């Protein structure tokens, strides 16, 4: 009797799981159909475009002799982009660290300020960098500072949130211990939080540097600065050889940074 009942329960678990899966599957199909209808997306055309694109890339998007002469120009823009994303991430990281101290459970001054800090971080994170870029284009023009501030605001929002989460996760106990032994706010921060959360914080900063290189390409296309701009320029002039050289140089830079930060992560974690 008992066994039979258990068996029935087990079977009902399986049928229930099956039902949920079927429902989820149907939901995805309906969503897919609706989305295709709204965007006029044609699945067949989509699949056809991939081999076409691959052929096009293989025939056109290869560097030729003429494009090598543009290499110095491309490299100088590439270095500028790399330095820009490092500078943006470091500045935003410093600001975000001190700002996030007001938002963590362990170090906030009172819960209301904590809530306000989280709200401000959510605001900066969710306003698209495209909007910042266009807004700053009005006042700063085609300047490197346009890209700098556009990336700064979103990076600041992102890092504030992750720092708050990291500090809450890592250091709530040591903050309690330090407070119990009578250390003051500054001592708590620099003897408790900084040492325990630093490796995570550095990891996040490295990750954001990598992300910002990609984002700065996009912002470059929009605001006519940096590496994004010269890609757009060569691409629209149909100088595909030079454009491909830009792509390759970005790939090398991003993978290089990824490898370096993986090595650093391995040592510090």
């Amino acid at each position, binding site marked *: 009797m008992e066994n039979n009942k258990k068996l029935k329960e087990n079977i009902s678990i399986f049928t229930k799981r099956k039902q949920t899966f079927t429902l989820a599957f149907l939901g995805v199909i309906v969503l897919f159909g609706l989305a295709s209808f709204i965007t006029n997306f044609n699945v067949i055309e*989509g699949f056809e475009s991939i081999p076409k694109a691959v052929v096009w890339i293989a025939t056109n998007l290869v560097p030729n002799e003429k494009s090598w002469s543009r290499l110095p120009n491309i490299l100088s823009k590439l270095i500028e982009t790399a330095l820009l994303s490092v500078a943006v991430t470091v500045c935003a990281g410093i600001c975000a660290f001190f700002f996030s101290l007001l938002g963590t459970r362990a170090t906030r001054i009172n819960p209301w300020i904590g809530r306000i800090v989280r709200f401000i971080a959510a605001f900066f994170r969710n306003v*698209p960098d495209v*909007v910042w870029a266009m807004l700053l284009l009005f006042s700063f023009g085609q300047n490197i500072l346009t890209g700098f501030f556009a990336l700064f605001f979103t990076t600041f929002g992102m890092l504030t949130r992750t720092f708050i989460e990291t500090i809450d996760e890592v250091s709530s106990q040591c903050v309690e211990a330090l407070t119990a032994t009578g250390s003051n706010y500054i001592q708590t921060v620099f003897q408790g939080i900084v040492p325990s959360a630093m490796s995570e914080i550095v990891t996040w900063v490295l990750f954001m540097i990598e992300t910002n290189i990609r984002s700065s390409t996009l912002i470059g296309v929009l605001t006519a600065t940096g590496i994004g701009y010269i890609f757009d320029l060569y691409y629209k002039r149909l100088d595909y050889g030079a454009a491909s050289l830009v792509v390759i140089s970005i790939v090398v830079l991003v993978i290089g940074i990824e490898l370096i930060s993986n090595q650093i992560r391995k040592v510090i974690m």
Partner: protein
Amino acid sequence: MSEIIISSPAPMELDLHKYMHKDRSGKIKIAAKSKSSIAIRLTILVLFVLTVYAFISFDYKNINFAQSVAATWENVKVLFGQPRLTYNSFGGAMHALLVTFSLGVLSTIFGAILAFFGALLCAKNIANPAVSNVIKSLVAFIRAVPTILWVLIFTVAAGLGSVAAVVGLTFHSAAYLIKAYSESIEEMDQGTIEALRASGANFWQIVFQAIFPASLSYMTAWTFLRFEINFTNAIAVGAAAGAGGIGYDLYMAGSFYFDLHELGFITYVVVIAVILLEMLATKIKAKVR
């Protein structure tokens, strides 16, 4: 019976100097210098030096910084303080938002399907190591190219429109999800796979009876995270590659009509949509777990 000799333990000597270091002034050093703390300090130092060098090397084109900041502040006040639609209707903005949402949905679905099979070929515990390495390098390459460049490249091959946007966004999301999925497959308990293999299950049975149920919650979490990224990417791509949707409206308002009021309104629409999506994703993730 042989006698068991138990040697008495050597007297404990606490070699204080081995553990306690003093610096020159006689202060006891309390923080141990490990490899990791040195690496952290070195990384931070290098980043600071690079930042300072960056600010020195930038070409500022003699910009009047104070004036620009003041102008920016005025613009921010207009943007967020007086949002108003002039060129777009509210319905039009909602439709554009729906288009962007759909671009995000399509590229996430395609990306997730591709990534599921890609991850099976890529996860170290079930795949052929040679195939796994090839796919991992390919994925690293695809991820290194910014999404916007993929979309621009596909725009030439497939023409301007949703196809180029979806395929371009899919490329990047598939590569991202392959990495995430394969890592969650690699994390799962090897014993389950071995047990199924020993009882004679074939590859697909292992996949659907062990791997899929075990990593489902991780995969759902990653997929929703990617959906949020795809939504913001769809906005960006709409603005920079003319792929339509709310991003294109943003671009038109900002760079064509120069209308800060309109830009502000659309920004509010986008921000509210993103926050709602985040809340929805958190709810669904909590249900799957």
